C-alpha cells in the first residue's frame, strides 16, 4: 500500500507538488499564528481566553487554512477518480482506498511540515522587525513550542477529515462515474418568495451591492457598521453575479460576439468559471472586510494590529490559492472540451488564446470586483483617518500580488494540461 501510494505521488508529481506546497504554506501560517496568538503579548489560550478579538482572528485564519487544504485535496484527488475506480473494480475495499489516500496525504504532510515550520522560523525575525520599526513596539515574538503541537494537531485533523470526505466521494460515486469522471452540475439558488422580473431583480441587487459603498463613507469609523453594510453588499453581489453578470455574458456570447469564435469559446468558459467561483469571490471579500473590521477595532494595540495585518496578508494568499485550486480542479475536465473544439475547427493558436483570455478575464473579474469593494472601504477608512496611506498601499499590494501569481500559475498549468499528453 505504501509502495503504491509513493508510486502514485511520483506519477502525478506536479499535482503532488502543489498539494505539498499547500501543506507547507498552511503549516507555516498556522505555526506563525499560533506563535503570535500564544505569545504573552496577545495571550490567546482558547480556554478562558483573555482576548476575544485575537482568538477570533486566529480561529478565522486557521479556518481559512483548513478550507484551502480542503480545496487542494479536492484538486489532488479528483484526478485520481479513475485510479480509485480501477482499484474498486479489482476488488479493493473502501478501507484499502481510504488507507491508500491517507498514505499519500500523510507522506506529503510529513514532508511538508518541517519545511513549513522552518519557513515560519525564518519569518519570525521579520515580524519582530516589523513590530519594532513600523509599530514602535518593544514586544518581541519568540518560538512557542506548543505552537508546533497545535499546528500538527490541526493539520492531522484536516488530513483525516479530507480522507473521510474522499472516501465518502468514492463511496457515493458509482464506479462508472469515477471512471468517466462525470460531474453532476447541481445549481442552487434561493428563490424569491414572490415573482419578480429580471429587471427589478437586477436593480435590487445592484442597489444592495453599490448602496453600502456609499454608506461606508458615512459610517466608516464603526467596525460593526462596516460588517453590516458588507453583508448587505455581499448578498447584492451574489445576486448580481446570477442576474446581472451572467445575463450580460449570455448576451455577449449569443448576440454581440456570436461571430467571433474565440470570444464565444472563452466567454462561455468564463461564465462557467464565474458561477463556480461565486462563493470564493464572496469569501475573499468577506474575509478581507472582516479583517479590516478587526484591524480598526484593534488600533493602538500593536500586537493585535500586527495580528490583523498579518492575517489580512495570509488570508489573501490562502484564498488566492483556493481560487487557483478550484480553477485547476475544473481545468482537469477541460481536456475533453478542448479536444471537442479542436474537432469543430478551432486551431491550436485559437486554443492558446482562449486559455489566456479565460484566465486573464477570470482573475481580472475576481480582482476588480473584490478591489471595487475593498478600495472603497479603504477610502472610507482613510477619510476617517483610521489607516495611513503606506499601510493602505501595502494591503492593496498584498491583495493583488497573490492573485496575480496564482493567475500566472493557473495559466501555466492550464496550458500544460491541455497541450501536454503526459499530464
Amino acid at each position, binding site marked *: 500500500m505504501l509502495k503504491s501510494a509513493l508510486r502514485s505521488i511520483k506519477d502525478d508529481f506536479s499535482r503532488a507538488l502543489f498539494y505539498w506546497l499547500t501543506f507547507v504554506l498552511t503549516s507555516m501560517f498556522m505555526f506563525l499564528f499560533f506563535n503570535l496568538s500564544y505569545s504573552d503579548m496577545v495571550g490567546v489560550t482558547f480556554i478562558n481566553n483573555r482576548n476575544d478579538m485575537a482568538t477570533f482572528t486566529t480561529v478565522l485564519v486557521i479556518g481559512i487554512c483548513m478550507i484551502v487544504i480542503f480545496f487542494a485535496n479536492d484538486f489532488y484527488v479528483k484526478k485520481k477518480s479513475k485510479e480509485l475506480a480501477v482499484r474498486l473494480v479489482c476488488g479493493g475495499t473502501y478501507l484499502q482506498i481510504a488507507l491508500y489516500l491517507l498514505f499519500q496525504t500523510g507522506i506529503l504532510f510529513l514532508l511538508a511540515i518541517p519545511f513549513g515550520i522552518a519557513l515560519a522560523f525564518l519569518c519570525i525575525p521579520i515580524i519582530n522587525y516589523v513590530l519594532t520599526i513600523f509599530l514602535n513596539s518593544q514586544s518581541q515574538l519568540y518560538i512557542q513550542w506548543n505552537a508546533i503541537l497545535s499546528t500538527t494537531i490541526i493539520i492531522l485533523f484536516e488530513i483525516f477529515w479530507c480522507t473521510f470526505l474522499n472516501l465518502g466521494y468514492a463511496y457515493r460515486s458509482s464506479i462508472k462515474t469515477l471512471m468517466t469522471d462525470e460531474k453532476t452540475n447541481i445549481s442552487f439558488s434561493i428563490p424569491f418568495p414572490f415573482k419578480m422580473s429580471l429587471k427589478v431583480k437586477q436593480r435590487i441587487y445592484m442597489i444592495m451591492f453599490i448602496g453600502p459603498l456609499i454608506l461606508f463613507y458615512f459610517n466608516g469609523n464603526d467596525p460593526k457598521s462596516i460588517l453590516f453594510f458588507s453583508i448587505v453588499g455581499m448578498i447584492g453581489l451574489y445576486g448580481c453575479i446570477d442576474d446581472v453578470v451572467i445575463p450580460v455574458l449570455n448576451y455577449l456570447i449569443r448576440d454581440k460576439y456570436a461571430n*467571433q469564435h474565440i470570444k464565444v469559446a472563452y466567454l462561455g468558459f468564463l461564465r*462557467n468559471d464565474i458561477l463556480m467561483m461565486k462563493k470564493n469571490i464572496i469569501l475573499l471579500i468577506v474575509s478581507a472586510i472582516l479583517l479590516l473590521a478587526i484591524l480598526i477595532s484593534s488600533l493602538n494595540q500593536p500586537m493585535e494590529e500586527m495580528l490583523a495585518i498579518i492575517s489580512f496578508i495570509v488570508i489573501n494568499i490562502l484564498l488566492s490559492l483556493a481560487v487557483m485550486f478550484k480553477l485547476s480542479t475544473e481545468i482537469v475536465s477541460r481536456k475533453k*472540451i478542448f479536444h*471537442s*473544439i479542436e474537432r*469543430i475547427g478551432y486551431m*491550436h493558436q485559437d486554443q492558446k488564446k482562449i486559455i489566456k483570455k479565460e484566465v486573464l478575464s477570470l482573475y481580472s473579474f475576481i480582482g476588480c470586483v473584490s478591489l471595487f469593494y475593498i478600495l472603497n472601504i479603504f477610502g472610507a477608512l482613510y477619510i476617517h483617518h483610521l489607516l495611513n496611506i503606506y499601510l493602505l498601499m501595502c494591503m492593496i499590494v498584498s491583495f493583488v500580488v497573490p492573485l496575480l501569481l496564482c493567475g500566472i500559475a493557473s495559466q501555466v498549468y492550464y496550458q500544460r494540461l491541455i497541450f501536454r499528453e503526459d499530464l
Partner: protein
Amino acid sequence: MSDYILEVKKLKKIYGLHTQNEFEALHDIDFQVKLGEFICIMGPSGSGKSTFINNISTIDMPTSGLVYINGTEIRTMSSNEIGKFRYQNLGFIFQDFNLLDTHTVYENIAMPLSLAKVSSKEIKERVQTIAQSMNIDHLLKKYPYQCSGGQKQRAAICRALIGNPKIIIADEPTGNLDSVNSQELLNILKQLNEEQKVTIIMVSHDAMIASYSSRLIYIKDGIIEQTLEKGQLTQEEYFQKIIELNSKEYQGLLKNKC
C-alpha cells in the same frame, strides 16, 4: 479533377514510431468515396476502424500516404488551413456527443458558424431552423448536461450539419443511444444522404445500422479485408449479407482457436 470527394492512397499509420513500442495500425490502405455515398466501416475491436476514420478526417495525421478531401491533400495544409477546412467541409458526430458542457445547446450548435464568421442574425436564424427540424428548439437555452442522450445526439447532429458540410464523419454515433433514438438518428442520416446528397462515413459494430449504408468496408488488422456494395439489394438482403460476412469472420476465428 478526381470524381472522388475523398481519396486515400497507401495510407499508413504507425504509432510510437522509432520507439520500442512501434505499432503499425493501418497498412497501405487505398480507399475512395464518391459524392453522396453512405459508407459504413465495420470490423472487430482493435481492427483500426477509429484510427482509419481519424486519419481520413484530419483528426489525426497519417504516417505516410496521401489523403485527398475534395481534391486537397490534407498533409499539405498548415494547421490553420486544416482548422478552416474542417469547419467548412466536415461535420463530426461521435458516440459521446462531444458537446461542450460549458455552453448552452444553442451556443454548441452555433459554434461552427462562429468559426465561419457568419453574422449574428444569420446564426440565429440557422440555429433556430435546424433545431426546429431536429425537434430540439425548446432545448436551446439548456446546457447539454440538462438533456437526455437522444437530445444530446440530436444537438450534436445539428452542430455537425449547420455548416452544410460535404462529408459527415460519424464514429459509433448510436453507441450511447437506445433503439428508438438509434433508429431516429439513422433515419436522419439516411434522409440527409438521399435528399441533400451529404456524404456519410460511419463506423459501427451493428449489422442492422450498417444495413443503412450504400457500401460497407470491412477492416481487419489494419487492412480493408472486404467491401460490400448494396447495389440493387433490398435493405433486408443487404443486412443478411453483412451478417454472413460477420459470421464468416467469427467462424474463422473459432476455427483458428480449435
